[in-house]
């Protein structure tokens, strides 16, 4: 009898403890962000689709079209081509296509790149009604259309 009463009292106290916790949360500030109006900054190590990196001085892509990424890609989703322009020691990239529908964001291409010309973008708002948009992402053209920073 006494044991049952003690158990009952303890049980009731545990309910009050739970209610105290929720009340404390009630008075704390909210932590969620009203997404379309505010957005969190993507963390440093976020892996979006890959993108070409510019040379800070010339504004041109660092890529030398060595095709190491093309070979490293386990899903065969990168297609690179380049030309050797006159007066330049290295090749310049002219085509860089990514099949993002097959890319698993493994990062082998970024790892293997000898000149650090590839990086992860921070883009996550990717949506389209057509498959081709992602099956043939032209990263070179995308970079050219981008305004130089």
């Amino acid at each position, binding site marked *: 009898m006494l044991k049952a009463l003690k158990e*009952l009292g303890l049980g*009731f106290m545990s309910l009050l403890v739970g209610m105290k916790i929720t009340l404390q949360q009630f008075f704390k500030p*909210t932590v*969620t962000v009203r997404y379309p109006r505010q957005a969190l900054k993507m963390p440093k190590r976020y892996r979006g689709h890959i993108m070409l990196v510019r040379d800070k001085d010339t504004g041109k892509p660092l890529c030398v079209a060595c095709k190491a990424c093309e070979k490293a890609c386990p899903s065969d989703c990168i297609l690179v081509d380049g030309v050797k322009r006159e007066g330049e020691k290295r090749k310049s990239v002219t085509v860089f296509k990514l099949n993002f529908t097959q890319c698993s964001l493994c990062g082998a291409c970024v790892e293997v790149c000898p000149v650090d010309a590839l990086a992860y973008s921070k883009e996550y708002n990717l949506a389209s009604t057509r498959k081709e948009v992602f099956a043939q992402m032209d990263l070179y053209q995308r970079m050219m259309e981008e305004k130089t920073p």
Partner: protein
Amino acid sequence: MTLPEPYRLLAYLVGILTFVGLNAAYLVWVERKVAARIQRRPGPTEVGPEGLLQPIADALKLTSKQVLVPPQADRVLFRLAPLVVVAPAMMCLATVPFSAALGAMDFNLALVLVFALGSINVLAILLGGWASRNKYAIIAAARVVSQNVAYEVPMLLVVITLLMVTGTMSLREIVEQQAGGFWRWNILRLAANPLMPVTFVVFFICMLAETNRAPFDMAEAESELVAGAFTEYAGMGFGVFFLAEYANIVVGCALATILFFGGWHSPVGVLPGLFWFLLKLYLLIFTVIWVRWTFPRTQFYKLLNLSWKVLIPISLVTLVLTSAMLKLF
């Protein structure tokens, strides 16, 4: 201010309907806001400032939906159930004295009327669940009936305890007895029954169970029974059940205010009675919402165990104790 009888009647009718409608609409908003705050979210923000127009948007959406009756269902009972569930809840409010001067009806058996009408709620959910011809609805309806039968017993035992102390069933007289400072409120009448706060806790738990609120929301156990007894209801049919749920919470909390917290009496002696009544009412309603977002739903047999093995013995003890104290002192 006294109006001639027909006008007074009309004024109170309109007043109570408005009160119930506004409460049902805005308690949904309050509930969503409180739930959000407890979970550290902002809650509704899009429709109007701070989401204040959200209930109106919800109501418009519900009313614009097609009213569907399942082909297998019992048409008459199916359409009748929402009416049966909402009418008694509104009728109960007629007996509630909001302040010394504001109360639609005062008669000596008000408390009995409230409990008689209050139990119709179960009948309506049973009707709705049965008429739906849906297994989830029938399971939920059966659960609700056994739950309400179980919780009606300790609830009424507690009320009998209180009636022995007050000696009247008129809600107005019960409130008038508690005048003169908060130590005169029934919850602190320790001379008549040292277990009075426990009595209130039992009453509050039973009230949660009677209004089918979480953690006792067996009527609408979303995760187990789709939407319980309301599964087949579309649009405003469901809306009316929802309205009735909030109306029942208002009635239950108003009753708790009157029986335990001195109704319209102020603890400090300033501001009008209506203000204090509504303040106590909404604090209790806040507690109801707070409880809902703190505890998960209980299992069904634990729910019945709680009633038969814990609440009924406790309420019997308080009943015996009160009668002994009244006889001795």
